[in-house]
């Protein structure tokens, strides 16, 4: 019970922090408006998917070092398939790329299960493998994206009956994000598979003895992580209009946001909301640092310090709570 409360309070604390940052942003830049919020949502997109991928795997007691490489791979596949292809062809490309992500994720899981090599090592190896595969698909950045795909994360959603001053604050990118994550996460969380993922993360032995098929669950967790990773790769192609074979900075960012979001490395605890909120916090912080025109070399000090401080605070609170 106590840890349930703790978990929820952590997420609400994060929300509060996000609101404070928003207010701060408005103070720094009074003109910060809905359009800028849309930019924030678009910027958050690849990070959010990377974090979602990492979250599922971490809850299952693993870690996925290959997430950024998978994003690069799926992104170059998508971009090179859509290169000088018709707009409609993209309708086929999207599910195909998602399937690739799912399968690659499943392969990660399968390798872990079959070789019994620890997750961190297997995904370190697949980090290189997927990177290499991405380079084999596209030697240099290139390719293209269908216009409708690019447009699908630009602008806002018009909802009849709701004034535009409100819908202006509902960027399409945010809707795409929430729909994509929700469509996978909500049913998962309610399913037996979801429960099993938490179970193997919490105690593999107990889960096995409770009749959970540990191997199958682990593979499924990685496969779902791969699916999210592919969404992240697609989102890269959608926002840049190209595919780049060199992985972006999503691996470390995803691990950091997972932990900031209250998911314990080691597994069994946490949810998806916290990490996603953490992503928005980190992105907004970056915006503020740019708006403030702070010396760019100081920004990484600030980012590192905030990350350490927040996690320390969380650890400190948890420690105080444990005391009677």
């Amino acid at each position: 019970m106590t840890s349930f409360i703790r978990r929820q309070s952590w997420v609400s604390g994060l929300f509060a922090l996000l609101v404070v940052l928003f207010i701060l942003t408005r103070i720094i830049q009074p003109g910060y408006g809905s359009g800028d919020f849309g930019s924030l949502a678009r910027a958050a997109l690849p990070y959010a998917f990377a974090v979602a991928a990492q979250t599922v795997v971490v809850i299952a007691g693993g870690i996925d070092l290959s997430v950024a490489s998978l994003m690069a791979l799926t992104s170059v596949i998508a971009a090179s398939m859509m290169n000088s292809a018709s707009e409609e062809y993209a309708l086929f490309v999207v599910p195909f790329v998602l399937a690739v992500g799912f399968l690659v994720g499943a392969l990660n899981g399968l390798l872990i299960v079959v070789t019994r090599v620890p997750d961190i090592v297997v995904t370190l190896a697949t980090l290189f493998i997927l990177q290499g595969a991405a380079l084999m698909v596209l030697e240099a950045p290139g390719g293209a994206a269908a216009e409708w795909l690019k447009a699908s994360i630009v602008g806002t959603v018009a909802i009849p009956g709701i004034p535009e001053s409100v819908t202006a604050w509902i960027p399409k990118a945010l809707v795409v994000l929430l729909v994509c994550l929700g469509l996978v996460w909500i049913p998962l969380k309610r399913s037996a598979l979801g429960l099993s993922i938490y179970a193997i993360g919490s105690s593999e032995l107990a889960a096995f003895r409770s009749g959970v098929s540990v191997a199958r669950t682990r593979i499924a967790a990685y496969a779902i992580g791969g699916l999210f990773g592919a969404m992240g790769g697609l989102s890269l192609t959608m926002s840049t209009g190209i595919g780049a074979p060199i992985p972006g900075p999503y691996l470390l960012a995803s691990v950091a946001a997972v932990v900031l979001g209250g998911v314990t490395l080691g597994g069994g605890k946490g949810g998806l909301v916290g990490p996603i909120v953490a992503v928005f916090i980190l992105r907004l912080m970056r915006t503020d640092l740019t708006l403030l025109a702070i010396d760019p070399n100081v920004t990484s000090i600030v980012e590192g310090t905030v990350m350490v401080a927040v996690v320390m605070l969380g650890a400190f609170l948890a420690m105080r709570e444990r005391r009677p």
Partner: protein
Amino acid sequence: MTTQPVLDATGVAKNYGAVAALRNASLSVLPGEVHALMGANGAGKSTLVKILTGAVRPSAGDILIRGKPLDVRSPAQARRAGLVPVYQEPALIPDLDIVSNLRLTRTPVEPFRNWVRELGVPDLDLDDLARDVPLAILRVLDLARALAVQPDVLLLDEMTAALPANLAERVLDVVRRQAAAGRSVIFISHRFVEISALCDRATVLRDGETVGVVDIEPGVEEKIVELMLGARVDRSRPVSASQVAARQPGEKPRLSVRNLSIGTKLNDVSFDLSNGEVAGVVALEGQGQDELFGALAGSIRPAGGTIEVDGRAVRFGHPADAIQAGIAYVPGDRAEALLMQRSVRENIALPFSARLRNWGPIGSQRERGAVSKAIERLQIDTRAQGEVQRLSGGNQQKVTIARWVAADARTILCFDPTRGIDVGTKQEIYKLLRELAGQGKSILFYTSELEEVRRVCDRAIVIFSGRVVDILPVEIADEAALTRASYGLPRGAAADVGILADAAQKGAGAP
């Protein structure tokens, strides 16, 4: 007797590398019987249960379920075949709440809830995380979860070992009714009273082999012990507890606890522990004994009261402080005390390195000497000593004590040290504790097996609802008196509680 056995296993063997956990075990269980599986520590009982329920793959052997051969590959499959285990270690997922744990195993909630109530835990919150539930309750939940799916064969591995008397009694009751309803139960325990009160037949394992199947009838205990221990049989009489070390007049007590209180769990507890004394602590589950031991061990900070060691007031902020004051704590849950992947030697030598000033080079000679002396003294089976996790439960338990024998701690707080230990080993531990006391050491000894008080202790401190309700001299601390006291009843009240008293009256045998 031509009834077909529900479960018939023959020639089961299991090798872990060079260690043969099982060589040639067989087990045949009839419908509606409670079948005891007995054997000394490390005989292979748990391994057999794991094999029968698919948690471990056997190296050899045939398993017939209702006459049909079955290759049990996973716990899930065993479950479908009607075999449901309660393992020696809790199998609930720590980070899931109890409802989710039930959902995970597709256990119906209502029957589960009923069973939990039946088993004597009335106020369970199903939204609690398993992590926050005390060990004994976890065991009960594990059992209730198994019962709720109405298994044909229920396998209970030392189900009662971690339970206080009141809960153990309920378990026996429930098991008995299972059998009456025509279901079978495989029951592992080191407690003869339970076996004789409950079981129809017993299969005895020794060194991984089935060495006999006996009907349970009055007087069969001797035979079982003989089968279990083989040549190792130890007929030394219970250690007499009457030789209280002569106390010098005016000597300060080793440990003096005054008005100790911790939250709502412990209230105004006061008692003394002398040099050379073994004091028993007796309590039902959750009466504050965990907190008392925690406070004395330096793990929990008390809210009020004082602790004096040799007449000097102490405050412990960390177990290291208690150890510094010569007080060592042996937790009841051995998983809490042991480095499972490390060797027996490292486990025993661990306290030598703990303090900052001992971080330097290790004196190998001295250490080896101290460690092997302790191993010898506790007769630890060191065949699998490379990693403690490969030792049997009982031998693991011994390592937790050996550590403090080697470190020569002056005061040892033993929390249920004989939990899950076979009769032979128990005798050794009793003897050891008395010997230590004879050397002037003092021991605080919590036990869930009331008969142990008479065998080992000089006094019994009874705790009920966070208070010391009685301190009984050993002469009158028989099981009946202790049971009464631990329910908070005054001395001399009618003896109407406790199956142990029942069993004693009825005589062993008929369930």
